[in-house]
């Protein structure tokens, strides 16, 4: 039996954040959610028919978005029921993403009772001016109330912090960490803003109407957040992720360790049997395939040994556990250090090299690519 992560994509939001270029649509009414959920269920059934859940145990479930917390709890229930009917679900971690503006305590308690044990809250900032500039629906007060609610509901809490946002200062970062950690938050994801083509924020920045940090400033802010979090006992276990020891995100960690996961829903990505594929990215295409009894998959790559190795290295080096030498040898039949002598030698300064593993020193994670490209 292999472990399997299940990712369910909920591509709806009440409004679009200024920096967002993900597949999501602004919600028009409950009917569209209902249709979507029916198709999610249909997809699960088709996956089962295609044997995806055979010989696999679902050990993590993750509802991401978009804004999954927009869904009425009965929709969560229907999806989970279908999943449980069609697979062996023994999840030790079940996470849903939530927008602080769209949750209430009853909903959280109900989700808890369904088996969800973890919440990922998109707080991003506790500066109201900043939140407004990026078109988030919540303010600082609502965000802290949401965290408190999640704590009351008994969920393990993760919050997102974004750095490089308009009006953001070191002071804001400090406030964020101090205020958020007044609660029992076990996990913090810190992202640097990236300005994507076609987003409203990019347009504002291009026309000089708003200013965001340049790369060096972003790193300053990031490093400051990192320092504060570490002072509070957090470990940076991956490029963007900090947690108290033992509270690493188990589902997300599969991405770095190349464990299998199946994505369900619009544009959700999967890795199954060393094939990478994703679901079609428009509602029309996605619905059409399912209505006609086909899985809406688009194959990206059947990975050969070399690609697997390349992925393994580039992903493992994102984590603090790094490349486990014994594991590497078992998988690829080669001694990692011997195979990458030159790169190891030229990056001695940036690497932690022990008998068992090689990882990138924390202070070099933000320039990871410079190092990784010499290993692939």
């Amino acid at each position, binding site marked *: 039996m292999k472990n399997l992560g299940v990712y369910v994509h909920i591509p709806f939001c009440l409004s679009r954040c200024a920096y967002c270029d993900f597949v999501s649509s602004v919600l028009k009414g409950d009917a569209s959610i209902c249709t979507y959920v029916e198709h999610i269920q249909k997809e699960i059934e088709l996956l089962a028919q295609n044997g995806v859940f055979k010989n696999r145990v679902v050990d993590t479930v993750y509802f991401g978005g978009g804004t999954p917390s927009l869904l009425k709890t009965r929709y969560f229930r229907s999806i989970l029921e279908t999943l449980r009917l069609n697979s062996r679900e023994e999840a030790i971690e079940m996470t849903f993403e939530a927008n602080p503006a769209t949750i209430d305590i009853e909903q959280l308690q109900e989700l808890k009772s369904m088996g969800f044990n973890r919440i990922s809250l998109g707080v991003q900032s506790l500066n109201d001016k900043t939140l407004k500039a990026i078109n988030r629906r919540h303010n600082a007060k609502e965000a802290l109330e949401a965290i408190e609610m999640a704590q009351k509901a008994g969920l393990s809490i993760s919050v997102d912090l974004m750095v490089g946002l308009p009006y953001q200062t070191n002071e804001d970062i400090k406030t964020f960490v101090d205020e958020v950690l007044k609660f029992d938050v076990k996990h913090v994801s810190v992202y640097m803003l990236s300005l994507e083509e076609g987003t409203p924020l990019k347009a504002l920045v291009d026309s000089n109407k708003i200013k965001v940090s340049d790369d060096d400033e972003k790193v300053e802010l990031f490093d400051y957040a990192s320092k504060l979090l570490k002072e509070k006992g957090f470990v940076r276990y991956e490029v963007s992720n900090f947690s108290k020891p033992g509270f690493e995100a188990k589902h997300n960690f599969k991405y770095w360790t190349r464990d299998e996961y199946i994505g369900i829903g619009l544009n959700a990505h999967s*890795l199954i049997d060393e094939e990478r594929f994703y679901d079609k990215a428009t509602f029309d295409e996605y619905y059409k395939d399912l209505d006609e009894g086909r899985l809406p998959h688009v194959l990206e790559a059947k990975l050969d040994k070399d690609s697997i190795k390349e*992925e393994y290295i580039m992903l493992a080096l994102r984590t603090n556990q790094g490349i486990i030498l014994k594991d590497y040898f078992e998988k690829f039949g080669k001694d990692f250090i011997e195979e990458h002598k030159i790169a190891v030698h030229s990056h001695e300064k940036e690497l932690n090299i022990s008998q068992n593993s090689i990882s990138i020193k924390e202070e070099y994670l*933000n320039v990871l*690519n410079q190092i990784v490209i010499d290993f692939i």
Partner: protein
Amino acid sequence: MHFDKSKIRNFCIVAHIDHGKSTLADCIMSVTDTVAPRDAQPQLLDSMDLERERGITIKLTPVTMKYEYEGETYLFNLIDTPGHVDFTYEVSRSLKACDGAILIVDASQGIEAQTLTNVYLALDNNLEIIPVINKIDLPSARPDEVKKEIEDVIGLDAKDAPLVSAKLCTGIDKVLEQVIHLLPQPQGDEAKPLKALIFDSYYDAYKGAVSIVRIFDGKVKAGDKIKMMATGKVYDVTEVGIFTPKNTALDELAAGEVGYICASIKNVADTKVGDTITLAENGTKEPLPGFKEAQPMVFSGVYPVDGARYDDLKDALEKLKLNDASLMYEPEVSQALGFGFRCGFLGLLHMDIIQERLEREFDLDLITTAPSVEYIVEKTNGERIIVSNPSNLPSSSEIDHMEEPVVKATLLTPPEFVGPIMELCQNKRGTFINMTYLDTSRVSLVYDIPLNEIVYDFFDTLKSRTKGYASLDYEIKGYERSSLVKLDIMLNGEICDALSIIVHKDRAYERGRRIAEKLKDVIPRQLFEVPIQAAVGGKVIARETVKAVRKDVLAKCYGGDITRKKKLLEKQKEGKKRMRQFGSVELPSEAFLTILKLDSDD
């Protein structure tokens, strides 16, 4: 078949770049039905794409045409001449092959620098000259003023100069009529020993190196044994003929005629431009005067971006050399660039052309070092050596003094740009010689300028400062003593040999500072700080720093979309492959280009 010499006219067209020389040639060919209209590509004489694109002629291709006039058939040999300063010697040999010249002057632009240079060259060769005013179809044409300019400046009678539009092919009969009446018939004696002037050559895969010749005395036919007088080498003639413009074999070429000689010669280096061909037995003792070896003036290191393509570059140079005897090259090793070649060119245009042909025709990516000239170094031990690669310059303690080549530069400009040009020449260490008002709208400025200043983007700067109105021509004057130093660029504390240049002592600081600034902009940030230092004799005169990179990571990875990340990384890796590793520093190819374009007004 023999042609009565009195019916032969050998002539060329001289002009400034862009005044319509090739267009007029095309037009004459179409009037004489030399090329069927369907074959008439624009500017047929410019055989290489590159030349066609730049609108300039480099290679010389004669054409033999028949023209009926008053019941008689005339044979015209039109000899094309390159219009660029790099090829002055080749021009002089082509002119030698002619008895007369058509001088084209643009009806709106008037006389330009190269008009003068080429006219004087033609006059030096005792050619009769027919002035022709071209582009009279342009609204800005001012033919009367231009006629006056020709009379005042050159001293030619331009009263009857034909007014033509080569583009529309009008007025050409008048030109040809003047060719018949005003240009002399060729001299020479068929009975004397053979004297044939090689004024160009090219390589043919089947026939070997083909000499393009003007026969001055005697006759030559297939089966003859000929001797190259400069090299003493003897060959058997396999074919003689004329260009119509395709090669057309004839039984014989005789005095007064222009054509080609094939003799299974393996290398164009054995058909030297300016050499005299005679018969191996009973040949002439006296070669035609004026032969010179091709002399490269500008030198540059040429390296493949991908070091693994060294052999491809070598093959490509060999192939180009087959057709271009003036291209010189020898293997060179650079610490920064690996294995490559030091190449010698006739001038900057020649260098550009060779580099572009290597890249286009042979699909090579190249890194070229800053163009350099040949310096004479007199060492303290009395030894005199020639240095073109800055890395080969002895240490300053071993140098007694150095000499550098200086050119006499003639600049023609509308009066409003005299100030900017004088300033430019001053900046380029020029010595003012004289200034003449040719008429109210044109001034001629003459300066002596060190060649190493000309090779640093003098043309570009001149063009930008004078909005393209000024023209430049130069000729080598000789060597002069000069205070020169080697300027080194150190990256992360190590001298990068490919970036070293030789400069005048007084310019070293300024140039060092600008190179350092430019390099700072093109060297990408790396994992560590990279100091860039400019140094003379070990003393640092300028310093910049490329800060260490702070952010280079793909952070967003929602929902496990790994493929996109991998593609981005692979792209980055590809980019890195194109970098040159110098010590621990990665250098993009542009780094080596920055020092080529240093003094542009940007």
